[in-house]
């Protein structure tokens, strides 16, 4: 299997520091086309291509846009979520690095559709090296009249701002992200009010992932409906995935939906040293896990097929863990991440993470009791069903999945878990 080039079609084709170079390869023609269209038609186009949000929540993007543009309010805001905090996920970085003007163009189109006046790119602090690139793109777009007032003579005003937080994972969550831009501590808040009604600076806000947004200009120009030729009936098109862990060549690949997991791993050069796969985690730290069985490896990478084996597409990260790492060590590492990144506001997540980390230590040392095993499971369940935000809800996904996939590991006392 080969990776494809739809979303990545501009990669390497133009000088990312020059808007002229971008325009030579057809840059901003999607925007020119968009401004001749009705916003609702653009939302329908996205819906027609069955695009699901690429950040991890997998929400129907066409529907999101359609709802967002119907929200009444002044000074609406578009936010591009470039926080990309999920572990093993780095596909947005490639999009920013290789096609920054496309992202700016996509944001302007989103602004046009939503009737927004401002767009914010919230880029994770660790991507500081790409700030000059984006700032340059914004500056050039402004000087060419693609940003500012009366864009393309359509009486439409829009500006893009770049913002970086301090590097907290939880700031990828919509409400925490918004608080972070507002200069507050990046902690999620309860909903309602939903951000589409009252988001950044209490303005109606539409939040999209880098990859979701980047897709829009390409879809607008895709008159031959090439995108729809990729994928399956329910998972249309292509997807950016990042493969990491014990593979020979970790990296980002654009794959058509339906590519088998086995082929995805092959694209990344296969498992290091041809070792046995202990487990696979998709969708980053908040994703679920599966064993490296043939059944799993032969599963096509689609929303529906992954769901059938209890995995998710999520952020598009694929982590391959080979036999050198035990399931418990993997879970401990994953737990360490959440123990660090939890915001600490809500009880189940704040306290639950502490106890589960302690129980995992005991599991590792072989000193855990039956009662403690049961407690660990029930705390994980409580966290996933009653936490304030998505972080707490998904933090124990891997543990809960692992307890189903590897029941032999979750035994009391001195079980042998090499």
């Amino acid at each position, binding site marked *: 299997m080969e990776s494809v080039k739809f979303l990545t079609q501009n990669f390497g084709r133009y000088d990312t520091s020059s808007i002229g170079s971008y325009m030579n390869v057809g840059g901003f023609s999607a925007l020119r086309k968009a401004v001749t269209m009705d916003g609702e038609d653009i939302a329908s186009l996205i819906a027609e291509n069955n695009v699901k949000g690429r950040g991890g929540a997998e929400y129907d993007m066409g529907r999101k846009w359609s709802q967002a543009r119907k929200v009444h309010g002044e000074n609406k805001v578009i936010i591009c979520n470039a926080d990309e905090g999920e572990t093993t996920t780095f596909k947005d970085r490639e999009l920013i690095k290789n096609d920054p003007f496309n992202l700016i163009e996509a944001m302007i189109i989103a602004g046009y559709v939503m009737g927004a006046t401002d767009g914010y790119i919230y880029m994770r602090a660790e991507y500081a090296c790409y700030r000059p690139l984006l700032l340059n793109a914004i500056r050039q777009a402004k000087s060419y009249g693609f940003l500012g007032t009366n864009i393309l003579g359509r009486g439409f005003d829009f500006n893009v701002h770049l913002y970086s937080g301090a590097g907290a994972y939880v700031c990828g969550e919509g409400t925490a992200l918004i608080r972070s831009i507002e200069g507050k501590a990046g902690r999620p808040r309860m909903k309602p009010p939903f951000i589409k009604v009252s988001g950044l600076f209490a303005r109606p806000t539409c939040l999209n992932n880098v990859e979701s947004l980047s897709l829009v200009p390409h879809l607008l120009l895709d008159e031959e409906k090439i995108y729809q030729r990729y994928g399956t009936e329910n998972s249309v098109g292509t997807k950016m995935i990042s493969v990491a862990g014990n593979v020979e060549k970790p990296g980002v690949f654009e794959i058509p939906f339906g590519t088998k997991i086995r082929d995805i791993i092959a694209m990344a050069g296969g498992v290091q040293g041809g070792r046995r796969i202990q487990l696979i985690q998709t969708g980053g730290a908040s994703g679920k896990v599966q064993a490296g069985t043939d059944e799993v490896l032969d599963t096509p990478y689609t929303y529906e097929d992954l769901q059938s084996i209890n995995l998710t597409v999520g952020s598009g990260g694929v982590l391959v863990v080979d036999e050198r790492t035990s399931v418990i060590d993997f879970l401990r590492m994953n737990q360490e991440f959440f123990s660090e990144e939890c915001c600490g506001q809500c*009880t*189940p997540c*704040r*306290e639950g*993470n502490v106890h589960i980390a302690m129980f995992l230590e005991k599991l590792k040392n072989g000193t855990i009791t039956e009662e403690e095993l049961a407690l660990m499971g029930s705390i994980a369940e409580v966290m996933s069903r009653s936490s304030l935000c998505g972080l707490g809800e998904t933090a124990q996904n891997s543990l809960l999945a692992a307890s189903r996939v590897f029941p032999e590991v979750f035994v009391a006392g001195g079980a042998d878990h090499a």
Partner: protein
Amino acid sequence: MPETQEKPVEMIHLTINNIPVTVPKGTKILQAAQQAHIDIPHLCFHEDQRIKAHCRLCSVEVIGRRRLYAACSTECWEGMEVHTDTPIVRSTQVSILQLMLANHNRDCLSCPRNQNCDLQKLCSRFNILRSPLPSIVKIGHRIKTNPSIIRDPSKCIRCGRCIRACKDVQGIAALTYAHRSKDIVVTTAYNKPMEATDCVLCGQCSLACPTGAIVERDATAKVLWAIQSRQKHVICQVAPAVRVALGDAFGKRPGAIATGQMVTALKLLGFDKVFDTNFGADLTIMEEGMEFLDRLKNGGTLPMMTSCCPAWVTFMEKEYGESLAHLSTSKSPMMMFGAVAKTIYPKVAGVSPDDIVTVAIMPCTAKKAEIQQTQMLRDGKQDVDYVLTTRELIKLIKSVGLTFGDLPESDFDSPLGEATGAGAIFGATGGVMEAALRTVYEKATGKTLEKIDFEDVRGMQGIKEATVDLGSRTVHIAVAHTLKNAAKLMKDVESGTSPYDFIEVMACPGGCVGGGGQPIGTTRAVTRERIKAIYEIDKSLPRRKSHSRSAKKRTPCCTRITRLCRRPMSSEIFPNSNEILLSFSHVLSYNEARNLASITECKKERKISDEHQQHPQRVEQLHPHI
């Protein structure tokens, strides 16, 4: 006139535990459940605060949804089927409580909030017989750097109620969350002591706290020691807001007037004399009212702002140092009373001033700091020795085993227990202003005030304004409660554009009746009831103007009293006009002084033998937490 058509409120139909409930659109599940007589457990939710949804204890099941919903923050939708007592809900709630307990210092038996703690009540309600999780609580020192408030982070459940009280009620935000994940704590900026921040020690955080994490600094043991020591003559004064709040803790309805029983209880506790702070309030009106008239007449700094509330005065000192001239130079009623009690009272009562112990029972934690302020000391000594909050008084009454509800009623002792209705209404927002207007009007115009009730300055509105015609000129007044509202008025005052002449500020919502030292469970709704009660007391009194007190004669000690009532922060003592001297003639007439002396003669014989007299040092040893 065409009728304005009101948009009909959309009604939502849902079931809660299969009980059909109809609520207006926008109602949250928690409130809808109350209609079905179901109290969904909650900790971070507070009826006066914005919703936080942090504790997750109110999680309920909604049919067709995988995850549970927080009842406090989820709006009801049409056809929703809510269940509050399924196995999943119950096990989730029990788990959350157990998680909280594992990170909570469970020394409940010696906790100031024992039997008055929301967490404790919920554990009892859910029959938490054991906590299977290992304790992970970090037990450090209690933070007791100031005279008012003690914090114990090991009791904190991070619900954020204190943070909201400080930020949203007072607009101060001295308390905030710091750090994250398991390290998240409620603390001050840079972990400074509270008093070193913008905190004014109003105590609203201690009122909002569901556990023993923020409590008043307890002075009950010291007061008990004083009462029980033979040579001490212990007198107490009770603030107007205490009598309408005390009953709450003894099963009375909110706003029940318990003056008589309160006085009896205090006498049974062993106080030698039980006096009324309202007496001090009447003094305040005379001082503050005359000062206002003087400022009006002689071009003093206007608007003049009241100085009764120590939290407000501290707020001024910390935030508006340039504008201090606007503050009245009068001491607070409590401090005026204290000054009289330590100077004039001993002479007429025939007691050595060194043997007098003055205790003030206040709805307030800031008062505990006020009595220690250096500017309030006379010859290095305190005029008021101890302040007990309403909460501490409740504890004292319970500790001696008085069945409060059955107590007969008795009257305040004379004469420092006698006061007018003007003094009584000091406990409610707008009260000081109304009391002042009653006196100022008559003093300025020379006419009798017919309509004595100034309705414009009453009620829970954040900022109230009114104009009063004083004949020679119309004065504009404003009343603010909560410091957040006060700050709004201060903007104009600072810039010199304030349209007002006289401004009353009380730091706590509703005035002292909603004070930070009031019983746990003091909400705005309860505060409203107390305010009603305060005005009932005013109406029931024969004299309702501070200057209309009984005694007529001038006394030589008048000048002295005026000096006693002034805040030493003002460089010059307020010029004592004849008028003021006259107005003070009532304070201690010869008749009253004689009366006082006769009362003190029958000082009751104490039964404690010398051997059992506790030494002060011993008290410290017995109660190291004080």
